[in-house]
């Protein structure tokens, strides 16, 4: 069942790649579109069949592959991977949909997008360390080409930078995995939370550090982030959507699954430093975003800030904060995808992303009013206005982390305030004001440009009003991760007072 999620896009890749050249533009697009829809629908169906009450892996598939190496094809779905798999399906579909139909070299493009989808899904589903690594590296290749071929003016530089950074992160992750298995003397690379439990603390720290830097590059955490703004600025809109929406989540997924999950003891000791690191990331991302002139760069830096919240929540490692981390991954995936899509539309219509040049785009007759309205919605969601997804995810993160790291949490909250500053400046400068003459003949915005944005906005509001639909999927898994063998014991500094009988019942 899970293999279908990987096999479908792979099959699609093959078919699209082998199409005769003259069919590439229309048939290739249609096939990619169908495959993306099918795998998205399949992932949603899996979500319905998924039993949220179970703590164990579901739909497990286990095939021995290279037993001598300890590599087996072991897939499984749990509450941590399910939302991300669905998110990946949705955003791949949106990326295919929002691709320019007249794109150059369509067969290669669509097959790479599908290959990327397969790689990411595989990584989220793998429960074998080596298999995860293989998929993690697999996703890197198509993305390199997607940035390097269809990117902007400096695409070669950005793609190479991305490749070197991510390959380096892959090497570190591989080293970490090898170290865990060799030092613990396990006979296979099968993922098991108790794998590293028997190791001495010093080697745990060493391995944790290696993996942390490896995933930290992908997330990205300051100071390993400089590939991200370049990659975003040069990548085309659909690729930016995938990059921000899904690819970064591989890093945070790894953070929860392979760092917090494998080294609970070392994690608990390192947690205060990690939380401080998160604060640095949040504030650095936010402040740097304020000074940007390029809309895409601004959104890219805001991603860095918002991914910092996930590190904070992961460091706190309470059931609630982990849930917040999960929620933040999905909400950031949707919101940043929305923002990149809209920036992409603005760029396509006006030919610039410079906020010092753009002005008055909300103009009802000659501007982009609906795109502007969606932009305001996206910006407000990102700034954490209630009623939308960004708020509840941030609230869960803060509420979950505050009892453990009060100071760091409060400082991170300054980051949400700053988010409002730069995103509001963006909207105010580009959409408010009088439309200058140079933009008075903008091309028409078609429904094709609007539909993806509208869908994402509706989802953001829907999950903002009904978060329990998403929370319900992940809660059991994430709580079990913290209470399982070798669970983390972070000590809360603030505990709910048990003086009043009414509240104490709730706490117990």
């Amino acid at each position, binding site marked *: 069942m899970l293999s279908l999620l990987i096999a479908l896009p792979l099959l699609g890749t093959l078919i699209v790649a082998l199409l005769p050249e003259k069919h590439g533009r229309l048939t290739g697009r249609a096939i990619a579109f169908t495959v993306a829809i099918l795998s998205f629908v399949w992932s949603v169906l899996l979500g319905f069949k998924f039993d949220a009450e179970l703590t164990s892996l579901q739909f497990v598939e286990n095939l021995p592959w290279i037993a001598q190496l300890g590599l087996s094809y072991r897939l499984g779905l749990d509450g941590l991977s399910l939302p991300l798999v669905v998110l990946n399906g949705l955003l791949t579909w949106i990326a295919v949909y929002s691709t320019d139909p007249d794109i150059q070299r369509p067969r290669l493009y669509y097959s790479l997008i599908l290959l990327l989808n397969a790689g990411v899904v595989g990584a989220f589903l793998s429960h074998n360390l080596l298999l995860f690594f293989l998929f993690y590296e697999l996703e890197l290749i198509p993305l390199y080409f997607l940035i390097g071929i269809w990117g902007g003016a400096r695409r070669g530089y950005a793609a190479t930078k991305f490749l070197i950074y991510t390959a380096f992160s892959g090497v570190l992750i591989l080293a970490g995995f090898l170290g865990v298995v060799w030092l613990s003397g396990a006979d296979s690379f099968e993922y098991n939370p108790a794998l590293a439990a028997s190791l001495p603390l010093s080697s745990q720290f060493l391995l944790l550090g290696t993996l942390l830097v490896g995933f930290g590059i992908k997330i990205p955490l300051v100071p390993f982030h400089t590939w991200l703004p370049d990659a975003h600025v040069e990548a085309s809109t659909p690729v930016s959507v995938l990059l921000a929406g899904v690819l970064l989540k591989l890093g945070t997924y790894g953070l929860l699954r392979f760092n917090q999950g494998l080294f609970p003891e070392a994690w608990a000791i390192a947690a205060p430093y990690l939380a401080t690191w998160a604060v640095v990331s949040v504030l650095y991302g936010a402040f740097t975003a304020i000074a940007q002139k390029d809309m895409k760069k601004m959104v890219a830096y805001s991603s860095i800030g918002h991914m910092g919240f996930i590190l904070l929540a992961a460091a706190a490692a309470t059931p609630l904060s982990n849930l917040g981390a999960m929620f933040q991954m999905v909400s950031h995936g949707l919101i940043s995808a929305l923002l990149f899509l809209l920036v992409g539309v603005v760029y396509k219509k006006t030919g610039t992303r410079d906020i010092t040049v753009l002005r008055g785009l909300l103009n009802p007759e000659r501007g982009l009013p609906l795109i502007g309205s969606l932009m305001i919605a996206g910006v407000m969601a990102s700034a954490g206005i209630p009623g939308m997804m960004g708020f509840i995810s941030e609230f869960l993160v803060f509420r979950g982390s505050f009892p453990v790291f009060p100071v760091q949490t409060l400082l991170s909250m300054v980051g949400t305030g700053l988010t409002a*500053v730069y995103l509001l400046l963006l909207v105010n400068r580009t959409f408010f004001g009088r439309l200058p003459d140079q933009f008075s003949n903008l091309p028409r915005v078609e429904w094709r440009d609007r539909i993806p944005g509208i869908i994402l906005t509706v989802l953001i509001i829907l999950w903002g009003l009904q978060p329990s639909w998403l929370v319900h999927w992940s809660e059991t898994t994430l709580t079990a991760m913290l209470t399982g063998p070798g669970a983390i014991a972070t000590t809360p500094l603030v505990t709910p007072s048990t003086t009043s009988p009414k509240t104490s019942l709730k706490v117990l």
Partner: protein
Amino acid sequence: MDQFLFDTCWWIPCYGLLGAILTLPWSTGLVRQTGPRPAAYFNLFMTVVAFLHGLFVFRATLGHESQEFIIHWLKAADLDLSLALEVSPVSMGAAELVTGLSLLAQFFALGYMEKDWALARFFALMGFFEAAMSGLALSDSLFLTYALLEMLTLSTYLLVGFWYAQPLVVTAARDAFLTKRVGDVLLLMGVVALASMAGSLNFNDLYEWAETAELNPVVSALLGLALIAGPIGKCAQFPLHLWLDEAMEGPNPASILRNSVVVACGAYVLLKLQPILVLSPVASTALVVLGTMTAIGASLVAIAQIDIKRALAHSTSAYLGLVFIAIGTQWTNFAFYILFAHAIAKALLFMSTGAVIVTTSTQDITEMGGLWSRMPATTTAYLVGSAGLISLLPLGGFWAMREGVNIYWVDAPWLVVVIFLVNALTALNLTRVFRLVFLGQPQPKTRRAPEVPWMMAIPLVSLSVITLLVPVMLQGLSFLPSWDYFNWQTALPLVLSGAAGCLVGSTIYLNRTWARPIQAPLKFIQDLLAYDFYVQRLYEVTVVWLVSTVSRVSAWFDRYVLDGFVNLVGFVSIFSGESLKYSISGQSQFYLLTILIGVSIFGALLTFVLH
């Protein structure tokens, strides 16, 4: 039927929201054939429904215990977020005030916004605005209250930015959002902390917790300050007050609500929080100090304004300052009276200025004059509104302030002085504006000034009547003292302060050509007040400067230091590779020598390490 209406009282905020959502086809331009009017009528209808529903529930609650509705919203791990609603005479009364004023303002907007192309969008925003406010009135959970406050921030941003093509509107909307957001983020910090400490966010649980909680003084002080920060922003109190002044660039019907009930929402939240604020004496002191500063400062600043809306907006801050004092000293009755009387009178004043603006097409009072004979209903409304605001005649303002003077007469005489000052200065300001706008010789812009059309006149006149009836309403709710307990000794100075203000206001020399005083000190004072004590400048050189400098430094650091380092590493590796390629000479002796040297260095290192 009765029970049904009572049980569905949570619908009251939803009507406005429903109106806003269902008018989306018009406001997004999907439906163009009908024009925007159907959307406006639909929203108006929804507000009527909300008002009537609320009226019924209000009558049903009178004389009953308050009831609580709890809707479980999100349960995750140890967090149980529920949306609690309180149905009590107070909360329903507040909701009625909101929907009632919203109804009048929307009716007024039919006339005021008649020629605006985005009428549907305006009404959708008003519906959203009303929904957030009436929800706030009913909310009994700090979580819901916080969420609704943020919705108010958002809708204020959208309403102030309604005419987004104008440059002043752009900055006004930005400042309104960011200033309120500062307060909101601080409030969020308080909410998160409180949620972690108390375990629940429903006000009843919080009150229970507050009774027994023992907090470290520093923690309780910080908590209290964080909790009052949100209301400070909402109520436009120093130091987060400038947005209200700038927000006057927005459409007038929204200003009617903003100056009457929106600011009151902030104070209402504060009233709800008051039993928790008792934990923190610092916060109470801060409320009194900030309230006093704003009350006197804003009253003074108002006198120097020449924009008719701004002159009144500053006095809103001043009255809310009195509310802050009342809450800081734990006299909630006084706070409620002021909020009620001020909301109605100020809404009327703003309606009458709206009528003036729509007729004269200007907001500059130096360009007006002689309107009294041309616009009698508007003039009457202005006079009634002024009388309802200050204490000269026995209308709402008098009874509210009398309560305060009675309370503080013995314990805190200096607060009595503050009330007198606010009263006198407001009276002075209102008289000044009245003389400039309605009396004197007609100016070019006021020469052809017909009375406003019926769509604006009806709400104007109805609200005038309501303002006159405020004492009757207070009497009906038995809030007024009986004659036996009426204290002439405190009432007389209060009336005298109002009379003094009017007297000074009607005798000072007013020059419509905006002459600058010759004496340097007077000139300085005029500038100081006209520019809000240069607070904006203060922001610029402190907070704004700090944020922009830090952001520029971090962007520079990112671009040149971090990324520079990364690029340097890349460059060095490419460069060394490139230069090493020149060592490929093709002579095998040279390769042998390289290998030999390499191996010997390696061996030397190895022995060095082993020893």
